[in-house]
């Protein structure tokens, strides 16, 4: 099967799934209306509608190719960083490091992917961004809460730019017999599909069967039943999608398990960060879901792990 054909099969499946979700949402909505409406059902339908848009964006992007993918993730990172900075208290002295983060560090990080300069991509923000930010902040001359302010910006940059940039960085991995046919875009879509389906299925299983909360203070919607049911289903789907990856079915199951676990832990950790900043959602730009970072929190943890495992085990 050519890459194009694989793509059509995969997206055919996703569109079928979304159609089913929309139909169920419509029936639930009709039923809830007779009972006076339900906020949960309205939110469910808003989420499904937003999924149609997000899937459409990824599909269009697939045909536009590598550079468009890099730009798409750069924009997503910028929105995520914007949400992070909005919730983080900043002072006048943080202006310069903020401007440099948005207009220099973020574009350079993504340019390094487009350029294929892996060695610098891997250390640019953790080393040079890390060192530059406190210097830039010091020029502001304000020492009040200095360490806390710089640390928060470094943290936000690492999560929203560095970690998320590992998703398009999958285009740089060279897997023999796979990458030569430019199939890496499919590998990235595989990551996104497994991460997001895992989130969705954990939400569905949690709503239907959820009883035992995993971390009631940090993320009240996460339940044992949701995690086990949704996680195992996502691993099953990840294994069944082995044909769009360079992995054998069992390897795909293992990779999917790692993606699901990392995504879950990312959602948990970022939920704690979000709550320590006094918010329930990162933003409101994606209807029903909250902000960009509410959708990408699991990706930011799963992408680097998936990237490194693929690179370590499948690149000669």
């Amino acid at each position: 099967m050519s890459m194009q054909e694989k793509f059509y099969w995969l997206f055919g499946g996703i569109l079928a799934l979304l159609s089913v979700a929309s139909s169920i949402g419509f029936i639930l909505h009709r039923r809830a209306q007779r009972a006076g409406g339900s906020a949960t059902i309205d939110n469910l339908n808003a989420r499904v509608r937003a999924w149609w848009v997000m899937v459409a964006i990824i599909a269009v992007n697939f045909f536009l190719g590598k550079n468009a993918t890099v730009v798409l993730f750069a924009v997503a990172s910028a929105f995520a960083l914007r949400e992070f900075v909005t919730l983080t208290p900043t002072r006048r002295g943080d202006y310069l490091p903020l401007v440099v983060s948005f207009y220099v560090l973020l574009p350079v990080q993504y340019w390094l992917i487009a350029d294929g300069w892996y060695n610098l991509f891997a250390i640019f923000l953790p080393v040079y961004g890390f060192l530059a930010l406190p210097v830039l902040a010091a020029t502001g001359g304000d020492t009040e809460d200095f360490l806390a302010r710089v640390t928060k910006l470094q943290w936000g940059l690492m999560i929203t730019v560095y970690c998320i940039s590992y998703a398009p960085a999958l285009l740089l991995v060279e897997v023999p017999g796979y990458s030569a046919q430019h199939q890496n875009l499919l590998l990235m879509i595989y990551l996104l599909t497994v991460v997001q389906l895992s989130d969705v299925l954990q939400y569905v299983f949690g709503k239907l069967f959820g009883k035992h909360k995993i971390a009631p203070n940090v993320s009240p919607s996460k339940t044992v039943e949701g995690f086990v049911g949704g996680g195992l289903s996502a691993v099953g789907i990840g294994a069944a999608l082995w044909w769009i990856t360079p992995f054998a079915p069992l390897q795909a199951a293992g990779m999917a398990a790692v993606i699901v676990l990392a995504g879950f832990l990312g959602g948990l950790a970022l939920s704690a960060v979000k709550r320590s900043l006094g918010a329930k959602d990162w933003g409101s730009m994606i209807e029903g879901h909250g902000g960009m970072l509410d959708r990408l929190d699991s990706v930011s943890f799963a992408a680097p792990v998936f990237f490194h495992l693929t690179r370590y085990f499948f690149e000669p």
Partner: protein
Amino acid sequence: MWLSLLLTGLVRGLVGAQPRWIGCRPAPTLRVYFANHTSHMDTLALWCALPVELRATTRPVAARDYWSGGGLKSYIATRGFNALFIERAPENREQDPLAPLDEALARGESLIIFPEGTRRAQALPSAFKSGIFHLATRHPEAEFVPVYLDNLYRSMPKGTLLPVPLTCSVRFGTPLALQAGEEKTHFLERARQAVVDLV
């Protein structure tokens, strides 16, 4: 027109400028929107938060000495958001500084004003200047709508040119009217408080 679209696109992409109609609905009635003033983005953010059909008849009031010096700034102010200029410096005034505002309101155009007179790098507005009181006295037919712009003082503080992307909301409060026999200081403080209440 293309410039307006470009400006609104930029503002939306950089600072969001999401409207929150808390105390009133968007309506084509004669209005004076008054807001706290912390950055160059304020005028644009408030203007972008209005529905597009209201933008055509809503004029942001801008200081002539700052915005109409020629070049890019005045091009943006006149062509981009249809600014109405007023004279800030008393020595340059040949007529009542509020006269252009009176004329605009008489034509049925709504206004956007910043009663603090200048930008302040703080979350809460400082004391209002008396212009808004005189407008309210002369134009009882207009609704005075308090507006609070959050976060913009962090995005583009005074003295900077490049806005940091931050999500900003534009909150519209309940319209205010001058009460019969209300003192100037009382009205100014009440108007300021109406903006503070939206924080």
